[in-house]
């Protein structure tokens, strides 16, 4: 009995020690002074910014913008999410942060329908709610902050690939998830756009990588081998385009297809596709800076909690001018080419 008691004691010390360390070293909270327990008394505002999951580099880039905004505006920001894109865990976490009495939450919902109850709950406690990166239009959220709407992006991707392959031929879509609303919405828009404007472009299939780069890469390999007359691959999420480019480049090197036969379009993170743009495997891609989304989210929440509002065309420091269309705030997209890829810092 004595022995096991000692063991528990040791265990507790270890776990709590780890907690203490990680809390200090975790750097999840901007103000390094100020003890976490003490924020009840302080009058400074705190916001909870919730991406879809923690870990993917896209969100790590967004976190930089969030932290920057926290520092610039003098507010406390907590950036956290479940380690997988799990809707239930995400909602539990939002609920926990509401208990902590944050003043505002910015959420990139994994399931746009499921966040509705917790959003209403937040509003009833006078907590401002916005969505970012991925919208939940049928909830009480005040604004959605995105680079562009999913429909616009889907159409932009479609136009880009149609343009590159000369308006006719087979293309395949590569998505990160078959159930994420911001992926399916883009796919639907792109499909509709191609049907209406480029009837000769045929979408042969849509494959999903489940956010796993190896799977994305193998998907691309299998597509190239399944459809010998494939002319284009469209990547709808960050991991898809580089995986597609890697597979295409390999097929070219192995002599299976000719250089330039398969074009790649869609969304890309500049640092991931830099070498493929430079060696010509990819011609152009659509991109946006997730850190700008993060910055704008915190900035908007700060305005809202001050009782102010955003305006169309207003300038946000470090971001630029924003477009406000009803309850949607757009920060804009860029077209990435080999000439400008070096200019992006993410």
């Amino acid at each position, binding site marked *: 009995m004595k022995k096991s008691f000692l063991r528990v004691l040791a265990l507790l010390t270890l776990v709590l020690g780890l907690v203490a360390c990680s809390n200090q070293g975790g750097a999840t909270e901007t103000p390094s002074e100020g003890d976490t327990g003490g924020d009840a008394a302080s009058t400074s505002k705190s916001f909870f910014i919730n991406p879809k999951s923690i870990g993917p580099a896209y969100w790590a880039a967004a976190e930089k913008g969030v932290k920057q905004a926290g520092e610039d505006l003098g507010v406390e920001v907590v950036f956290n999410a479940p380690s997988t894109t799990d809707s239930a865990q995400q909602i539990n976490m939002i609920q926990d942060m509401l208990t902590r009495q944050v003043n505002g939450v910015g959420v990139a919902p994994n399931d746009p329908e499921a966040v509705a109850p917790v959003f209403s709950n937040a509003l009833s406690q006078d907590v401002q709610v916005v969505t970012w990166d991925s919208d939940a239009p049928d909830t009480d959220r005040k604004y959605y902050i995105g680079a562009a709407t999913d429909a616009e992006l889907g159409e932009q991707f479609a136009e880009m690939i149609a343009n590159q392959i000369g308006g006719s031929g087979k293309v395949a879509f590569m998505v990160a998830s078959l159930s994420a609303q911001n992926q399916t919405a883009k796919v639907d828009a792109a499909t509709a756009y191609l049907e209406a404007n480029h009837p000769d472009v045929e979408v042969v299939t849509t*494959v999903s990588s489940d956010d796993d780069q190896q799977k994305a890469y193998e998907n691309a390999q299998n597509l190239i081998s399944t459809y010998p007359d494939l002319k284009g691959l469209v990547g709808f999420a960050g991991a898809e385009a580089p995986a597609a480019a890697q597979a295409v480049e390999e097929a070219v090197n*192995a002599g299976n297809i000719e250089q330039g036969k398969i074009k790649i379009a869609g969304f890309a993170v500049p640092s991931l596709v830099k070498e493929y743009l430079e060696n010509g495997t990819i011609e152009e891609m659509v991109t946006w800076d997730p850190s700008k989304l993060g910055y704008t989210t915190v900035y908007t929440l700060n305005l809202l909690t001050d009782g102010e509002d955003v305006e169309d065309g207003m300038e946000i420091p470090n971001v630029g001018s924003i477009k406000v269309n009803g309850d949607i705030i757009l920060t804009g997209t860029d077209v990435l080419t080999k000439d400008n890829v070096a200019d992006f810092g993410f």
Partner: protein
Amino acid sequence: MANIFKRREAPIILFTIVLFCIFSLISSNFLKPDNLGLILTQITTTGLISIGMLMVILFGGIDLSVGSVLAVVATVVGMLVNAGINPFVAALIGMVVGAICGAFNGLFIAWFNIPEIITTLATMFIFRGIAVAISGGEWVTNFPDSFNFFSQGKIIGIPVPIALFATGAIMFGYILSQTRFGRRVYAIGGNKEAAKLAGMSTRKTKFLVYISSGMLTSVAAVIYASQVGSIQASTAGSGIEFTVIAAVLVGGASIFGGVGTMLGTAFGVLLMGMIKNGLVLTQASVYWVDATTGFILILAIIINTVQRSRNLASREGDLV
């Protein structure tokens, strides 16, 4: 010749061949040499990891941490290569890191006597955290061209990943079936108490198996990094443990240990890779891929079990 059908691997080999024929019939592209080469390349990472997993399962253990070990090693190797270190040196350092991860597992399992599934469930979380911490949450990417050797290079005409997997499989196939070390692994799984009484150091054997498993996983990690071209520590290799365990078990190994062969495992891995590739090639609807994969898996298990009970029935009458 008739003995072939009594072998434990017979059902899985037959099943693989049948499925191979079905895929060839449905899709004309399946049988192309390019595509067959593609399947072989795609199974190398799971293949290498499954060699280690086979040994672990043979002595009655299980290793859930392989995906996280892969992430740690891929991240470390990727960062080293990007820091200008020679890819081969980086790969060797990666193997050392993999061996350390394996030793960590082995230490808790063999010396502190904590069950395998618990230790590796824990280290699955811990190694994943370490991998993300090392990478700083950012993509490790834009590797120099020299690093492509591990995915696109060739040794005497054979692509490097396939050569590495084949070497690993043959080497450990030999070790398992022909050496004392191999017989010990089987003996521990077959009967722990007896093995202990017979004076075998089960600890040392287990420890060595986990270290080998870690090193095999790190070779897989190097290939992974080179193939995929960019590593995201939080997701790299996550969930791979299920594919690998399924491959080993479908290949005829028993989860209770003592039963299983390298040949069966190789076919298990091949079967899994073929399903993945074949389902895309048959142009099946994307929503049907998972359901069909699961169905084929269960079919494979059923066939295995039927074979096993037949073998058993012929020896032990009505026991099962």
